[in-house]
């Protein structure tokens, strides 16, 4: 790997004063937004589960978790950031490093990213660039290396741009999932990343450690699925709360997170037995699918859905920032090193529903997963959410719509950006959609 050049390719030299000012102002407003979001979530569900308290605290980017990671780093642990959920978390855990997802959910930093790349670029990318420019994201700043999976054009160039400031390890997923060469390529990528991780951390990933990491993630998957299963019946938890609990998994200590989720599920089961519903069981049930939504700013859509008149309930989603994160476990047959690497490679590639893939046999993975989700959660409608600039999700809409039309499930295409300006417009549309769903339920 070439040594990092002192001269930057993309990132500008900004005067420290400007950086500090922007960092401060965005940080302050972000803390307000996070507090505001949580307050609103509490308001929507008067009996919000007490177990959510933990997740609210960890969700604060500038709070407890940042300090914890700093303390771990001081002890010598490494932090490895990642963008897409293709990064093999099990390998990172087995090397005793801390995995954190570093996609940016701040609206204001997207404007900073506009200085480097055009506005048509995916706003998540722009926001991440902006966050790097002013050192806004604590997890990105704390990362010793970042794993960037080159799933789309934006990610490909983002890894180049970020390499100005951080060591970026790229992983190339094949675009065709199911040919023999694809799996071969991906396995080699996994092996290469394993070597990188071992080199950075100085820890060898032994079969024993890897087994422990995989088992820990399997337990997390189990707890995760338990939470999503509880959302399938009458509403015991509002969608936003579940989404927050899901998101926190991306940067929290996974074992502690698992325990807290189990505690949350216990509480939710009690609510279910007491029939203490979070909102009326007649509330139109909505599934969201599309581009990922990152806390804190990009909570726009779920907030609008659950605070609209008539109110909607998010019962599930097909988002790589929420219900997709820990859904698939790594299945191991014989716990030899080779089997585990195979298992990890196959799970991260084959089970993915990202539209960045196509496949020889029709590429229905995403559609199938969505249909199963819609049926299991008894959703009355689907919101197809696309961030402007994402060709992959936008182009798959026609296919998803056709599949859902066959099931007589209404789909609404909603595209938006990292901006607060279109909240009014979105509100009108979401409310009309929810009205439509409510009317169908009535009749």
């Amino acid at each position, binding site marked *: 790997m070439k040594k990092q050049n002192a001269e930057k390719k993309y990132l500008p030299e900004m005067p420290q004063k400007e950086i500090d000012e922007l960092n401060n102002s965005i940080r302050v407003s972000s803390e307000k937004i996070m507090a505001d979001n949580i307050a609103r979530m509490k308001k929507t569900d008067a009996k919000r589960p007490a177990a959510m308290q933990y997740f609210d605290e960890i969700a604060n980017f500038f709070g407890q978790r940042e300090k914890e990671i700093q303390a771990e780093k001081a002890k010598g642990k490494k932090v490895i950031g990642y963008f897409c959920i293709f990064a093999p978390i099990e390998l990172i855990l087995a090397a005793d490093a801390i995995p954190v997802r570093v996609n940016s959910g701040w609206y204001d930093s997207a404007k900073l990213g506009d200085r480097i790349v055009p506005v048509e670029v995916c706003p998540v990318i722009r926001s991440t660039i902006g966050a790097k420019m002013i050192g806004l994201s604590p997890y990105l700043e704390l990362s010793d290396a970042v794993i960037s999976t080159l799933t789309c054009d934006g990610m490909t160039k983002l890894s180049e741009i970020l390499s100005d400031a951080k060591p970026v390890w790229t992983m190339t997923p094949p675009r065709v999932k199911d040919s023999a060469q694809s799996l071969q390529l991906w396995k080699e990528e996994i092996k290469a990343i394993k070597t990188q991780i071992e080199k950075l951390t100085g820890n060898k990933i032994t079969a024993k450690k890897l087994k422990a990491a995989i088992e820990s993630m*399997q337990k997390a998957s189990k707890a995760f699925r338990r939470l999503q299963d509880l959302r399938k019946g009458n509403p015991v938890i509002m969608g936003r709360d579940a989404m927050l609990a899901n998101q926190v998994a991306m940067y929290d200590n996974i074992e502690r997170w698992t325990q807290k989720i189990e505690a949350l599920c216990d509480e939710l089961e009690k609510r279910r037995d007491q029939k203490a519903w979070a909102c009326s069981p007649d509330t139109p049930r909505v599934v969201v699918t599309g581009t990922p939504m990152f806390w804190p700013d990009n909570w726009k859509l779920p907030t609008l859905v659950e605070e609209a008149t008539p109110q909607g309930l998010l019962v599930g989603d097909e988002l790589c920032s929420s219900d997709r994160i820990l859904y698939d476990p790594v*299945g191991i*047959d014989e716990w030899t090193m*080779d*089997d585990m690497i195979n*298992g990890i490679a196959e*799970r991260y590639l*084959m*089970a993915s529903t990202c539209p960045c893939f196509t496949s020889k046999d029709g590429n229905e993975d995403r559609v199938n997963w969505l249909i*199963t989700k819609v049926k299991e959660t008894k959703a009355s409608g689907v919101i197809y959410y696309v961030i402007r600039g994402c060709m992959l999700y936008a182009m798959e809409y026609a296919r998803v719509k056709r599949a859902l039309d066959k099931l007589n499930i209404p789909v609404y295409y909603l595209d938006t950006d990292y901006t607060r300006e279109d909240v009014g417009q979105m509100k009108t549309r979401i409310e009309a959609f929810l009205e439509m769903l409510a009317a169908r339920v009535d009749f």
Partner: protein
Amino acid sequence: MYEALFGTILAWTTAVGLALAGILVILIWKKDRTRKVSYLRLFIQTVSLVGIFYSFTIALWLSVFLIVILVATMFTGRFFCGWICPFGFYMDLIALLRKALRVRYWTLPESVNDALQKLRYVIAAVILVSPLFLGALAISDVSGTQALYLRGPYKSLNIMLSPLEPLIVPWAGSVATLSFIDWSFSYPYARDIMFYINIPFVTSVIVYVFIGLSLAGTFMYRRFWCRFCPTGISIAAVNKFKTFKWMPLLHINKTEEKCTKCGICKRVCPVQVVDVYEQKGGDIATSVCLNCMRCVEMCPYEGCLKMKLAGKTIFQSRNWLQPSEM
């Protein structure tokens, strides 16, 4: 004296094996201890091994087994191969040994695996035809019905029964003799090789090479022999013709929408059947599947893979998410 002891051991093995198997069946159905199917299978295989050992002395049972292998297989799929066949049992035991030694298994490239499956037909054809040219086997201390299987035109049927050959047989003329109890070591297909290649010294070499290779192959490749065993072809024939589609009453069924293509089923299959993975949904038509149910056991998506007997689901994949013990 040793015979009596041996007999007692066998009897107890049968009784205990059946009892444990019964308990496991109840546990699986009532408490959904899905993972235990692999254990259940081992117990049933143990019981069947004992049963077959006894029945080798009674020729009538040989006929029953033949019918089971050739005819019932068309209806039950290769259930015989996965659950009853002693040769399969030996291979599973070797696999357990390999796991204990923490040696990883090898996989054949798919094309080679497919070629081996076609090899079955060749082998079966040779078996069925060769006795017509090669005449009878002279074994002095068998008579009556048993002789039917061991000589003349019915010899080919005997080779179909070869996988049932117990490793210790009460008659001489097998691979090696254990002097202190007057019995002999045998090995499936060994006697047939000795019969057909009746040249001194060459025979022994070939037999030992065959045994060595098949053991080595099984050690590295998981159920190596089953991929080209001629005994299991009846189900293959059935799969080829659409009119017989209803025949396999015991088969795997897949719900297309729930499959996430994670590939676990393909990886854990001991005979590397890819049809479970490749076929999108519905009844999986495959002629090598041993119905060992390992894929159903390991599929982590609830209700995705089901084992169906005459349309009724007897066993389905569940959301396990805890490490497997086998």
